[in-house]
């Protein structure tokens, strides 16, 4: 230590002391709180670290890593999942770049959290592909930032990006759907259930929200009844209903037949995944309807009246004036809805599907890994957390960008 550097060190020390005094020990009560909090953090951190580094045996994850991510998806078909991962990371980078500057702290936090996940992914190929996906994300993000810097008006580009997300969903389903659904599992199945659940329930949610605001009493009663009933029961009962009652309703003649028309649906096609998806979609539609209703109410009445005065038809008013504004206002809530659906899909494990939570149950049935529940649950929790946390950060960011909530 040289003489010159001493004053600087003292100053930082003094600043730190003052900061600590002002923020941690400003009153006796505050000091007690600080000490207690430190104790709680210490105990929890100690317990987690001791488990992670000393008592846990992580072999169960290393051996079964593929099942955690894609379930029983055949090894020679896993490239399909990679294509989708690349597609999503590219588009995510693009979208993030188009809408906002990068959040360095969030990115760093997620980077650190991905390290343990990386530790389990042994094998150069997977690591290289993962690195590639991250690289694509960064690259497309930088490219998007450059475009934003270069051109003032990026509205068209933004609209295109939103549309291409929808197309990406269909393309992804097409790519992944080549493999029979009963082989889907792990994080892949969880993501598909959550994403498809939101996308498919979206049109239903709009219809229900419009129906609830409708001037037709019959339609309104039906929609209110549907929304309130679905929101009044736990998802797990709907999953059970889809599992036990749905097959009885449409299976008898191996088709849905009505008035001479019949849509053949064999039991083989109407599998667990489709039924769970049906339950998730019908469930999510009721919640989305309420979210969208909030958006509809946020559109000023004057707009509708002005449009009517211009002689526009009801459909045109809805499609071109009301819905675009309403949906823009509810985007952050939609992301919130996605997060809760993402977590809720873990219940399909009770209905016998091998989603991320379901996988934690099947791998511990391997004789070598009996009793390794803590390890697999911790790993699954980490994966769930990374996805849910990054989505919630994204939604907060969207909220700020779109200026929702500021009145």
């Amino acid at each position, binding site marked *: 230590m040289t003489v010159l550097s001493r004053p600087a060190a003292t100053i930082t020390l003094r600043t730190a002391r003052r900061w600590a005094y002002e923020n941690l020990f400003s009153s006796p009560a*505050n000091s007690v709180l600080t000490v207690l909090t430190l104790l709680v953090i210490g105990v929890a951190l100690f317990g987690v670290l001791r488990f992670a580094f000393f008592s846990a045996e992580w072999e169960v994850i290393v051996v079964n890593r593929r099942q955690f991510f894609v379930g029983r998806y055949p090894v020679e078909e896993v490239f399909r999942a990679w294509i989708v991962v690349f597609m999503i990371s590219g588009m995510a980078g693009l979208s993030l770049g188009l809408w906002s500057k990068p959040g360095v702290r969030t990115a760093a936090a997620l980077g650190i959290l991905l390290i343990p996940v990386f530790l389990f992914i042994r094998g150069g190929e997977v690591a290289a592909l993962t690195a590639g996906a991250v690289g694509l994300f960064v690259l497309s993000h930088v490219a998007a930032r450059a475009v934003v810097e270069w051109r003032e008006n990026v509205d068209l580009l933004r609209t295109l990006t939103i549309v291409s997300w929808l197309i990406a969903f269909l393309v992804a389903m097409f790519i992944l759907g080549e493999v029979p659904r009963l082989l889907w599992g792990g994080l892949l199945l969880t993501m598909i259930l959550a994403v498809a659940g939101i996308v498919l329930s979206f049109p239903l949610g709009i219809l229900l929200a419009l129906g609830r605001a409708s001037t037709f009493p019959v339609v309104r009663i039906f929609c209110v009844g549907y929304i309130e009933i679905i*929101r009044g029961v*736990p998802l797990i009962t709907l999953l059970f209903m889809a599992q036990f009652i749905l097959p009885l309703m449409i299976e008898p003649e191996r088709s849905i037949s009505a008035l001479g028309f019949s849509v053949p649906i064999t039991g083989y096609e109407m599998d667990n995944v489709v039924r769970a998806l049906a339950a998730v979609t019908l469930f999510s539609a009721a919640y989305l309807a309420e979210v969208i209703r909030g958006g509809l109410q946020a559109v000023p009445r004057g707009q509708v009246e002005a449009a009517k005065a211009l002689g526009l038809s009801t459909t045109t008013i809805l499609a071109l004036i009301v819905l675009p504004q309403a949906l823009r206002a509810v985007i952050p809530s939609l992301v919130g809805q996605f997060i809760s659906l993402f977590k809720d899909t873990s219940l399909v494990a009770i209905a016998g599907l091998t989603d991320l939570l379901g996988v934690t149950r099947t791998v511990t049935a391997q004789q070598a890994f009996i009793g390794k529940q803590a390890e697999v649950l911790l790993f699954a929790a980490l994966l769930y957390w990374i996805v849910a946390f990054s989505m919630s950060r994204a939604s907060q960011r969207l909220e700020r960008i779109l200026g929702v909530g500021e009145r």
Partner: protein
Amino acid sequence: MAVHDGTGVKRAGTMLGLWRDVRVQRFLFQVLFAAAVIVVGYILATNLTRELGNLNLEAFPFVNVSGSFPFINLTPSFLEQRAGFGIQETSFGTEYSANNSYGDAYVIGLLNTVRVAVIGIALATVLGFVVGVSRLSANWLVSQVAMLYVEVFRNIPLAIQLIFWLTVVVLRLPRIENAPEFGGFAVVSNRAIAMPWATTGDGLGVWLLLLVVAAVAAVGVYRYRARSEERTGSPRHPAWWALATFSVIAVGSFYIAGAPLGFDRPALENRRVMGGLSFSPEFIALLIGLVVYTGTFIAEIVRGSILAISKGQSEAAAALGLSTVQRLRFVILPQAMRIIIPPLTNQYLNLTKNSSLAIFVAYPDIFKVASISLNQTGQAVPLIILVMLTYLTMSLLTSLVMGIVNRRLQVPT
């Protein structure tokens, strides 16, 4: 569809005009809509009843299209059969054994759900408010920890959290052999967590009556002192006086009535907890899980609502010399409550519905009991519908109560 011009002008007279009449169109559309719903429902119900008939299963309370009048099955008869399985814990002093019926078992499950939901709602509210306020605390560490808590527990599925609380925390409590008794005040073990509880004697009715009298007297005293304070402007401590009045009457009458309440202290006997009020580890794990999970959402609601109260309010209160606690208690929270109640109601409903995840921690709630019954009898349709109806009723009741609270709290106009 260019025929319609959207102006709603009626052109009666011809048949074509009738069709163009907006009222007729509206009516026909609704008839068609209702017909479509009924047809689809009819097809599904027909398939279902026929298929259930083939499987010798009951269809409650579905329309039994192929059955006899009134075509609705209101008595699932299997509910009266002997259940034949045990349930480890019951609520509110109810008794149950394997000889009771499936219907009885269902009621036991329902009471267990109600117990965990009611206690959970109370504790989650407290936790949520504390954390929500802590997130805005001046103590940096406290606010950061509050944020950490919210971000961690909000983003992990409840099912995983429940298993964590049971296997990592509650089951790691001392074994029954080494359970501490805290001098008869409480027993903490991983088979039961017990605390003292009141036992009742003969004079209880008399004492309760006298308590009502005490309460009335206390209110009277409070009003009198408060009015005197308003009139004179000098402090008369109405709350303290009321409390003192109540205490004196309550304690005095307690002994007059012959001390009808005693404390039943839990104790360990032969590896069992006897006496007191005891909770099973499954209940505790479910309770912690529900409270911690729902607490994160309530905390965010509370934080958001406090932030929504304009900063000027807080500053004005500070200028008046109110302390932090006083500012919260008298200025911020009363206003924030009005924004808080509707989303808080949703969280209460969520907590109640989420209690159906009890199956992950072996707590015999309504869903678990129904699931066991379903396993044994295969009567999926009546059981699932019964469970849905029950949750629906609980949800509606909660909404109703919270609606009343909400109306009370609104600014009178």
